[in-house]
């Protein structure tokens, strides 16, 4: 009954389309019109999205595409979770093809019982599931020099939010028996360049996970399949993918990716090192750079906020270039270190204006302006840009980035 109703409505719509433009139908293959009551495609083993959905990650052309990054299309995101297939990527030597039956995690160094664990061993242990944002330490890095990121994706898209499942690293460390002299872990991946980072033992004992699950299934290869380290609130690079070695030591190893890279150069020529935490940040995703409003009228302005220090407490919006600010509505649940969606009804009156958001997290930290960041850190620090992003809405409804 219901089905026949749907079919007839579809036919009606098609008839309307045919009436509007007869040539349209003859040029395209429309199954329902050719075969009245025709069937759709059958069941399938692993689903695809609709062919009409086009949001994709953005990647810059490169002579070395095995090292680089791809940006999540945040302006197209719905709710707070990022589909695994659109999660941002940052690889240093390509994505390895790892057979989980052959993969092992070895925990060694300053431990009583060096241990070799299979993926099955790790999945046997009590698991933890949490929704958590991951953000590259270099996200929005180009905004230090100039606010030229033309859209949300290319200026803020090295951040994504997933539901992660894994085992508490503290539990695993209890299995190996950490020796009292140990104070750091050296985490290493099984990718071609064996990317490594030094992690303070205190973080490992606090809330670190060895994750094997993402958004209801195994990790994607691009996200570290079969095992990755997760350090809630810390820059993406420390969340070592394809994890195969954890070495307990009494010192950081000063790896290339924590000295030469992922350190923040200050105006006095000194560089901050081990700048792990990602501070509170937000961005308006609608209306945002590259979009066009159809004309004056009432819109729902929306965006995403997150903080590596905990929950988002407040997001304020300005629609007059920063003169006045109003609180946006925050969608529940507001989870710590996770995307929080905010919304605000907003009337576009057809006049040019500047809009922006600023987030406050549960520690009371307020997302700063770009000027305030630069006043302290200069423009060469490269990493950890969390300044407000202003969009200019033009009279014709187009939205662009703006130099502020």
């Amino acid at each position, binding site marked *: 009954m219901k089905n026949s109703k749907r079919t007839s409505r579809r036919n009606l719509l098609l008839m309307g389309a045919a009436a509007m433009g007869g040539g349209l139908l003859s040029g395209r293959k429309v199954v329902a019109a050719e075969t009245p009551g025709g069937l759709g495609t059958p069941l399938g083993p692993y689903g695809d999205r609709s062919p009409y959905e086009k949001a994709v990650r953005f990647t810059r052309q490169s002579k*070395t595409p095995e090292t680089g990054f791809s940006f999540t299309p945040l302006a197209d995101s719905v709710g707070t979770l990022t589909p695994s297939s659109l999660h941002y990527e940052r690889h240093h030597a390509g994505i390895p093809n790892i057979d989980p039956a052959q993969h092992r995690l070895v925990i060694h160094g300053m431990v009583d019982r060096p*241990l*070799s664990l*299979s993926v099955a061993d790790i999945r046997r242990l009590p698991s933890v599931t949490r929704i958590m944002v991951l953000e590259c330490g270099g996200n929005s890095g180009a905004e230090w020099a100039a606010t030229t990121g033309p859209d949300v994706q290319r200026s803020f898209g090295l951040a994504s939010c997933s539901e992660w499942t894994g085992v508490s690293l503290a539990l695993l460390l209890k299995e190996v028996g950490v020796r009292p002299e140990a104070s750091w872990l050296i985490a290493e991946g099984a990718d071609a360049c064996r990317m490594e980072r030094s992690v303070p033992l205190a973080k490992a004992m606090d809330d670190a996970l060895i994750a094997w699950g993402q958004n209801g299934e195994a990790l994607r290869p691009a996200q570290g399949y079969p095992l990755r380290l997760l350090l809630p609130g810390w820059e993406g690079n420390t969340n070592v993918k394809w994890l195969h070695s954890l070495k307990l030591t009494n010192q950081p*190893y*000063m*790896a290339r990716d924590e000295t030469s890279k992922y350190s923040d*150069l200050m105006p006095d020529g000194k560089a901050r*090192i081990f700048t792990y935490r990602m501070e509170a940040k937000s961005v308006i995703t609608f209306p945002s750079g590259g979009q066009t409003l159809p004309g004056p009228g009432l819109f729902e302005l929306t965006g995403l906020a997150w903080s590596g220090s905990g929950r988002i407490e407040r997001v304020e919006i300005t629609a007059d270039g920063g003169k006045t600010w109003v609180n946006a509505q925050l969608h529940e649940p507001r989870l710590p270190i996770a995307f929080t969606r905010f919304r605000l009804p907003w009337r576009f009156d057809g006049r040019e204006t500047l809009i922006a958001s600023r987030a406050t997290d549960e520690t009371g930290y307020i997302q700063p302006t770009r000027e305030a960041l630069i006043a302290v850190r200069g423009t*060469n620090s490269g990493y950890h840009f969390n300044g407000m992003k202003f969009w200019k809405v033009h009279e014709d409804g187009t939205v662009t980035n703006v130099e502020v």
Partner: protein
Amino acid sequence: MWRYSAILTILIVALASTIPLSAQSPTFGVGRPATPDEIRDLRAAIAPDGTGLPEGSGTVAAGREVFAMQCARCHGPRAQGDVGPALVGGQGTLATARPLKTVGSFWPYATTLWDYINRAMPFDKLGLLKPSEVYAVAAYVLYLNGIIRDVDVMDSKTLPKIRMPNRDGFVSDPRPDVGDKARKPN
């Protein structure tokens, strides 16, 4: 009845033997002991004090040859940078508007250079270089930066002793450093 007392005895023995050791004993007993071979196969990460550096040695002259063969293609014949980043120059630029961060101007430890060449270079031929060749390339890059002399030989003893020009150029993370929550100096 004897069953209960037997179980009780087992429980008491088990508790007596595990409770005092609970901080030291595994709870789940998963996995198997990592073998020395397995740990060796991971190939050591290198600490700033030289822990993990293998045997072997390399001269500047040998490094010049390996560099020309394997590195110059991306980093330029004099390591000035091309597809790959510059490895030389930049000393004195870190506090300027255009800082050039290179091995010579920025990297705080020479051990990092050995470790990174060993694990991540050449980019498209990872694992190609033998330990002595890695020492040699490290020696050549350090020489190009004026950090060692052309007669110096790099090995597990000499490399960690090098004091890089920017060794004291790093500070700890002071954040939050912007806004009301910024930490004020005491």
